[in-house]
Structures are given as C-alpha cells and as structure tokens.
C-alpha cells in the first residue's frame, strides 16, 4: 500500500508538472498580447515594451515558467525601485489589473467556490442517490417514472437556462433574495443564514443538473448490483431486504459513484463559470472568466487554469486511494 501510494504520488506530481507546463505553453504561443492589452490608453511601442517587462513577458517562455515555479516555493518580487513589492510563497504571480498577488485573489475566491461546490455536492448526492435507490427499488412503478422524468428534465436543462429561469422567474420575481447582497461572500462561520441564502439557488441550479446524472447512475447501478450472485447469496442466508440493500447492494453499487463524485466535485472546485456568473458569486469561475474577458490578465488565467487541473488530478488520486480503501480487490492488487 505504501509503495502504491508513493508511486501514485510521484505520478500525480509528474502530471501536475506536465499540466502546468502545457498550460504555460498553450497560452504563450497564442497571438494574444497581454502587454498590449493591458497597456492602457496612451499606448506606444516603448510603453508596450515597458509593460512587457513589467509583466515579465520579455523573457522566453521557459524562463517565465522557471520563475513561476520558483515563485511557488520561495515567493516572487515584482516592480522596481521604490515601487517594488513581494508576493510571498506560494506566489502564483501578480495581477497588475487587480493590484493583488494572484494567490490572494485565488484565496479570496476559493471559499466561495468551495461553498458552492460543497453545498451543491451534498444536495445533488443526497437527492440523486436517494432518488436513484428509490427508482431502482420501485422499478417501473410511479416512483421510478417520476425519478426518470426528473432525470430527463435535469439533463435536458443546460445550467445557463435553469440558472436564468430560476434567478429571473423565481428568486427575483418573488423577492427571495436580497438583490443588493446577491452573491456577496459571507462566511458560514460568521452568518450561516446569510451564507445559506446566498448559495441556495446556485446550489439548486447545479444540483438539478448533477442530481439527474446521479439518479440515473445510482438507479442502474443498484439494479445491476441487485442481480449479482452475491446478493442472491445474502438473500439465501436469510438476511432481510433492508440489510441486503444497506450492507450488500449499496456498498457495491455506490462504490463507483465515488469516482464520479470525486471528479465532478473537483471539476466544480475549479469554478462553475456559468452558475457563478449568473448568481454573481465571486468565486474562481468568475475570477477566471473576468481575467479572460475583461483584461486578459495572464497570471490569473494561468493560476486558475492550473489550479483547476490540479484539483482534478488530486481528486483522481484521492478517489483512487479511497476506492482502494473501499474495494479490497484494488487494495491488494496494487
């Protein structure tokens, strides 16, 4: 197990390195010129040049990458003379458009996205899994049909539509949110009620989409597992149906959901662009979209992209470890 962990960890580290290098490379070869884009109104060639230097884009991409990596470990200095300042490690760079170390921006945005992801995750997992189990148990009965209808509506509604409809025709129309506070970050530790009110509609929108997938997935897994020989064995032993479902069917049927859920959750941690946009949530998704569309803020773009990838990669690792914990076959085989 330890050896397995060590191997997985080193592989993960390698993938993270590769991903960050590719992201760097991809954004470096594109014909966008952040120096020109952020150079302001009085832009001339020398100003663009100075700007390029200020942004650290006047050196080859591998040097930029080297600085980036170094900054992650020891921090980074920006500016010159009396205007110089330091971003402490882990420094993802400095956003000249927002006058902040990117790490600070990310650290401010992360709790928002985390709240969004966790709440939506809990909601969709509980709704999706319980509906899926219900539908499987009541196969072909009205409960199953209702769950199927829910699944279909959920999967057929792109989030931008459900988000807008819920925002415009429910939340705003019936004054269910305080519009001026809409999307404002409130820590759940300080004001749990306000936090809940901020996130409930975004949670619903995201959960609507994901819960449908999970209902479908759970339903078919439970049905499939129910036909397994070992379920028949459990029944032949004389176990009652409740225990069979709880101990035998669900354990096996829900294990694959861990993989799915882990990756979906990690994907959300990278930022839910559309939902955050519609509900005004200052999370990672809005941070990155703003960086792209408003001012092409390269350090922020790089940081959020790499971070989103790292979330998925790390989730992959965690899911595998968790799976090994749950499924003894994986544990020993590895």
């Amino acid at each position, binding site marked *: 197990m330890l050896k397995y962990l060590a191997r997985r960890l080193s592989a993960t580290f390698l993938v993270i390195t590769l991903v960050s290098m590719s992201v760097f490379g991809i954004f470096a070869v594109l014909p966008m010129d952040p120096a020109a884009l952020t150079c302001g109104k009085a832009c001339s060639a020398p100003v663009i040049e100075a700007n390029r230097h200020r942004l650290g884009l006047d050196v080859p991409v591998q040097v930029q990458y080297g600085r980036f990596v170094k900054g992650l470990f020891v921090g980074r200095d920006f500016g010159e003379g009396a205007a110089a300042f330091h971003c402490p490690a882990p420094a993802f760079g400095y956003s000249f458009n927002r006058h902040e170390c990117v790490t600070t921006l990310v650290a401010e945005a992360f709790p928002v996205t985390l709240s969004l992801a966790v709440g939506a995750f809990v909601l969709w997992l509980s709704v999706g899994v319980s509906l899926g189990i219900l539908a499987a148990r009541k196969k072909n009965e009205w409960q199953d049909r209702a769950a199927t209808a829910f699944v279909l509506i959920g999967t057929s509604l792109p989030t931008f539509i459900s988000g807008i409809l819920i925002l415009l025709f429910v939340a705003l129309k019936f004054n269910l949110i305080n519009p001026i506070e809409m999307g404002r970050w409130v820590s759940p530790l300080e004001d749990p009620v306000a936090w809940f009110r901020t996130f409930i509609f975004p949670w619903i929108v995201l959960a609507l989409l994901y819960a449908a997938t999970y209902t479908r997935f759970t339903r078919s897994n439970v049905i499939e597992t129910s036909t397994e020989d070992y379920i028949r064995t459990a029944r032949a032993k004389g*176990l009652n149906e409740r225990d069979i479902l709880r101990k*035998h069917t669900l354990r096996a049927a829900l294990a694959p959901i861990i993989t799915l859920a882990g990756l979906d959750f990690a994907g959300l941690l990278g930022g839910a662009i559309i939902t955050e946009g519609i509900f005004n949530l200052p999370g990672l998704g809005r941070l990155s979209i703003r960086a792209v569309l408003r001012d092409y803020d390269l350090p922020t773009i790089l940081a959020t992209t790499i971070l989103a990838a790292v979330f998925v990669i790390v989730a992959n690792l965690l899911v595998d470890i968790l799976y090994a914990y749950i499924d003894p076959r994986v544990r020993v085989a590895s």
Partner: protein
Amino acid sequence: MTLKPFLEVKNLNVAFPTEDGLVQASNDISFTVARGETLAVVGESGSGKSVTSLAVMGLHDRKRTQITGQAFLNLDSGPIDVISADDEVVRKLRGKAMSMIFQDPMSALHPYYSIGNQLIEAWSLYNEGDKAAGKKRAIEMLDLVGIPDASKRVDEFPHQFSGGMRQRVMIAMALINNPSLLIADEPTTALDVTVQSQILQLIREMQKEFNMALILITHDLGVVAEVADRVNVMYAGKIVESGGAEDIYYRPDHPYSIGLLNSIPKIGELDSRRLVAIPGQPPSLIHLPQGCSFRARCSFSDRVANKLCATTAPTLDTKTTEHFSRCHLPESELVKARKESGGI
C-alpha cells in the same frame, strides 16, 4: 423408502411473464426429499432445475413470478408451505431450515467483505453472541470444510481465494446454522475437474455430518452416480423421469435420460465408444409444442404408434412410486432403445 420426507413439493408451477409471453419454467413438479437423503436433479441448462429450487427457497421476485402449488417443509414445529407463507416467514427459514449454494463461487461472495465478516453475518442471524463468538464459529466451520490455516484466512477477502476454496467457504456459510435441507445448485460446474470431486466429497461428508436433506442440481449425470439416492431428470420444465439412482443409471426409461447417459464418458470405455450428443435445441418455454416436448429431438418417436408423440403430451407413469417417466414408448421398445444406444 420409509423415511418421513423433510421437503414435499406438490404440483409446483413457476412461470415468468415476459414481453413475449408467459415462460413456463417449472411445470407441475412434485417430489420429496428426506433428511439424510440425496436427491439429484439432472437436466440441460434451462430445464427448470434451478427455478424449482429457487422457488422452494423463496428467492424468486414474487412480483415478477407466478408460482402455484405447494412445497412443505416438515419442521419440528409442524409443516410450513413455503409457497404460500409470508415473505418474512420464509426468510426466517432461509439459512436455518434450508440453505443453498450456487454454481459460481467466484461471484457468489461479496467482494468487499472479508470471508469472516460474511460468515459471521450468516451466523449472527440465528445466534445470540458477540462478534468473537461468531468468529470462533466461522473459523470452526472453515476448518470443517477444509480451509487450511482458517484462523488466519478468515480475515481475507474472497478474491484471495481460489475457486475451490471459495466454494468451500460457500458451503461453510450455508451450513453455519445447521440447516436441515441443503440445495446445491451445480456446485462444481465452475470448478476445475480435480477440484470438482473434492467439493462433491465434501458436500457428501457434510450431509452426513449434519444429517441434511440434500438436493444436488447438476447437468452432469456422471456426478450423480456416486452421490445420489434418487434422481429427477428434468426437461423443458417438467420432470421426465424420476427414480432411484441405479434405476436411472441402468434402466433409464426416457429417451432423454438415455441421451444424457450417452453423452458422458465412462471410465474404461473412453476409447471404445464415441460420445453422443443429443441433437437439436430445447423448445421455447413460451410456446411449448403440442404433444411430447422432447419429440423433436427424440430418435425413437417414430416407434410410437399413431403419431401419439405429436398430439398428446405423455403423463407420468406412476405404476410404481419408485421409478416413473413421461414417455409414450412401450417397455419393449425401451429395452431395444437402451441397447441400440450403447448397451446400457
């Protein structure tokens, strides 16, 4: 036989409604089996062997199955008809009064739980006592079924066991609560030939040890010879022949039984005779043909007068209670047929 039967099955029918029609999987099945007795049920796959025993165990989904008839378990407290009894009543019989082991030991154990865990779970259903007591009993049972180093292996997981070992575990699990009836559904089919006989041997020992009624389901008549007291031969959902093991072996009454016997090799005769497979496919259980359902595959049907096979389904000939069959073929022709097909 004068033993009081432990299980009495009377006119059992099992049918599954499907989109294509009603599948009549078990058709008018009656048999008995007593404690200490071994009943072998033989037939091709799909002949209704498993369906019948699953019905006895109450393992069919009642919503999707039509079951009629009766199956009495003669318990000390009095007989119970498991077909008409409540689900909950039948559930409490499973594992205790009757147990079952299945064909494929590879998939019959839950992959996520340790062997010990699964055994203890079965044990604790009918026994008071803490986990340690359950574990002690589990190790004891594993020892009994011949798992070496049981006290250590009890904590291992199914995938760490070989097929034969898993089947031993299954047997240990089925017997952990001293059942009166064990149904072994093709317990050796999925195993290596060398292991097969060990497992059979084990089942037989266990039967003696626990004085159980044993129903051994198999498609392999060869297996039956050494262990069975009685044999039921099933075809297309019906019992086509029933009798003592010797009767079936040496005096098979039904062309299908004859065919089955011909399809197994006999020790010492390996080279002298070709094995003969029964031609054709079994009929659809949805639209059973009129007349004898084996007719199409029977090489002797032309010897029956008046095309009787095509028009009338043969009934069980119950002239003796020990050996009977569903066949129109006269006794004289039978003797001939036995001879022609290999001189049994």
